């Protein structure tokens, strides 16, 4: 009986940990890989222009988060996310972090 209670407790703990994770392990891996592939994009994020001529901004935000955007070019980022800034780099915010 005690064994079943412990097992249930462990399972609930396992389920909670996995349920509250923002991404699966595979998702983390893919994101890490994409960040590796797109390092150059992040390094040159300051060159991206506002206006939607290319979809590289969307890619940058998706993979590195809103914090990767240059606040000089995209000043609204600082207004919307006061804690985010270019200096914090990837992983600071947005759906990609």
């Amino acid at each position, binding site marked *: 009986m005690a064994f079943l209670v412990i097992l249930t407790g462990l399972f609930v703990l396992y389920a909670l940990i996995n349920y509250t994770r923002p991404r699966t392990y595979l998702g983390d891996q893919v994101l890490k*890989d*994409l960040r*590796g592939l797109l390092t*150059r*994009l992040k390094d040159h994020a300051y060159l991206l222009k506002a206006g939607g001529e290319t979809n590289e901004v969307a890619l940058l935000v998706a993979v590195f988060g809103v914090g990767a955007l240059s606040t000089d070019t995209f000043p609204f980022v600082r207004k919307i996310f006061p804690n985010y800034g270019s200096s914090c780099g990837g992983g600071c915010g947005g759906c990609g972090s």
Partner: protein
Amino acid sequence: MITGDRIGLGWRSELSASILSNLDRIDLVEVILDDYFEAPLLKLRSLLTLGKQVPVIYHGVTLGLASSIPVCQKRLEKLARVIGYLEPESWSEHLAFVRAGGIEIGHLAAPPRTDATIEGSISNLRKIEKTVGLRPILENIATLIDLPGSKLSEPTWTTRILSESRSGFLLDLHNLYTNALNFGFGVFSNCSLSITHKSVQQ
């Protein structure tokens, strides 16, 4: 095996964002294997992730296998590590030499088309297969000069290496056209032997 025309781009870090954000317009991406000889596994894994987004073909540029000089074993071992991890269906290299006498040319150079370079190439291909486990598809190169001492025509020399080594052929149309311009022959007359060769895979 040729399955229809596909349009691709070479994978370069400068182009990575543009490639990944325009995958609907790109059929395939060519990755230079040599760029990953020293890469950690994490970086190699990212190529597998790339391969899930778009078909990837792998290409080598620094073996210099078309030579009477044996291919460097250390370089082959690095290549074997990368190929072993990525497990591609195929990969390609140039029918060129890139070093001699301890000097790196930094260029894909055409060797003299002789029996010696045919034998050297075949011997190198055996060595490559032994170390890497997979022999490359071979690509024709462009050259500015017809090296003195060449005794065979390019189609004959190429066809002999392909048939004697049973290797596949990557027919680079741009290189063929360049050679046709440089040496004043008809593209179709020169490639007639090669292009109909059953070894053409890409």
